[in-house]
């Protein structure tokens, strides 16, 4: 149970990185990636995955 980032659509704005409650998001070669081991889809933190809620590009932070 984790989210992933569609690298081709990512603008690398970094909003997801500081909204993530699990510090699961980091940069890798100019784009952001989500660690599947750290991601909890924000369960027990927030009602909705924060990366998807803040991402400016539709369908870019999606279930892996």
């Amino acid at each position, binding site marked *: 149970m984790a989210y992933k980032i569609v690298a081709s659509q990512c603008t690398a704005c970094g*909003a997801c990185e500081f909204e993530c409650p699990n510090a699961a998001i980091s940069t890798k070669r100019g784009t952001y990636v989500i660690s599947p081991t750290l991601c909890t889809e924000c369960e027990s933190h927030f009602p909705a995955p924060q990366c998807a809620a803040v991402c400016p590009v539709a369908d870019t932070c999606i279930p892996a």
Partner: protein
Amino acid sequence: MAQIISIESLTAPVSAEAMRAALESGGCESSSCGSSDGPADMAPVVWAKVKDHPCYSEEAHHYFARMHVAVAPACNIQCNYCNRKYDCANESRPGVVSEKLTPDQAMRKVVTVANEVPQLSVLGIAGPGDACYDWKKTQATFEAVSAQIPDIKLCLSTNGLALPDHVDEIARMNIDHVTITINMVDPEIGVGIYPWIFYQHRRWIGLEASKILHERQMLGLEMLAERNILVKVNSVMIPGINDQHLVEVNKVVKAKGAFLHNIMPLISDPAHGTHFGLTGQRGPRAMELKALQDQLSDGTKLMRHCRQCRADAVGLLGEDRGQEFTMDQLPEVAEYDPSRRAAYREVVAEERGEHVAKKAEAAETVAASEADEKVLVAIATKGGGRINQHFGHATEFQVYEVSFAGIAFIGHRKVEQYCEGGWGEDATLDGVIAALEGVQVVLCAKVGDCPKDSLAVAGIEASHEHAYDWIEAGIAAWYAAAHPAAQRLTA
């Protein structure tokens, strides 16, 4: 007023605390002070804040340059005129940027620019996302730069949603200028502009989103005004959506203490991939923008010299030298050398003294005219307050309105550069003529016979008789010659 623009006052360190103390002791109602005003029109403490800021003082924009560093890419709202994926180095508009910088890279860039562009007076963070939402990077950048260049003015621009959370830090860091983009004071209108916002860990849409945004914008504006931080309000004029509503926005932001209101035309093109671009929402024409600005001219003073610059722009407002300072061109270690900026400021102090005197003379010349005709005059200028650019090299013209009541800067018109490498092409002159709608005469440093004739056919006079003169002096001389009554009276 001469002592206010002495060299000493230009170079003396002025603490924000001292300004705030003086402001609190009365004097200026900040909302009544304006962008096009000079030292005679506002309290010294406010003039001190704006006199070197090209975006807050129309007079300063002839002399001083700003730079934006794109350290804050994250944003917490979506606007229908913005597409975050878009990036083009040839495109000059807000939110667009070629290179995102870390705070450390930004510091090196600012120091390099300060060493090479002596006009630099202001460092702004305008995204490409939101400077208050991406606060840690904004803060780190300002702190690093201030440590190296203590006299640089700091400013930031924000959509306002995260602003109330950082007002105290903004005050503490001596950020004296904050721009809030406020496109509506009625959330119903906001629905057509903002599809969503991200606030308190969730995405809000529709009316709720606009309500929250509106409340946060008003709160942020009030908090800044209470602390005597100068607030500029930017509004994007979107025909059919908020154009008439901006009259109400103007009233509200003025009442809440905004220093300046800047109405910007919507930039909309399908190629930008924005919602408005794709749905065919058009931007206003230059004369529509002017009509709205004229309607508001009794409200909070309007900024009319905005160039809607990129989030990584460098240089005087009319030019962008960002391409000269990309990361690959910066030195590994940049050390600040204050000598060039200091020397430039001495020169500017002298020039400004002369400019003020020439402006007053020009006002007398046109006042002596019996003609009550209002005329729009376009100026080709490279800066410094003078008519000093070749007609064919101008990428924009500064437009002034002149009548016996005075000479007022009212805006600028962007044009495609039609003359590249020494010859003109008639095809693009049509674009220049269209951009000069309503203008009666163009004053420039040089104009060829061919474009001059084409302009004449379109009813626009072009003249280089006043080349290298002060803008206002050139306009007054032309106006006096065009209205012989004025000439007779001043002779």
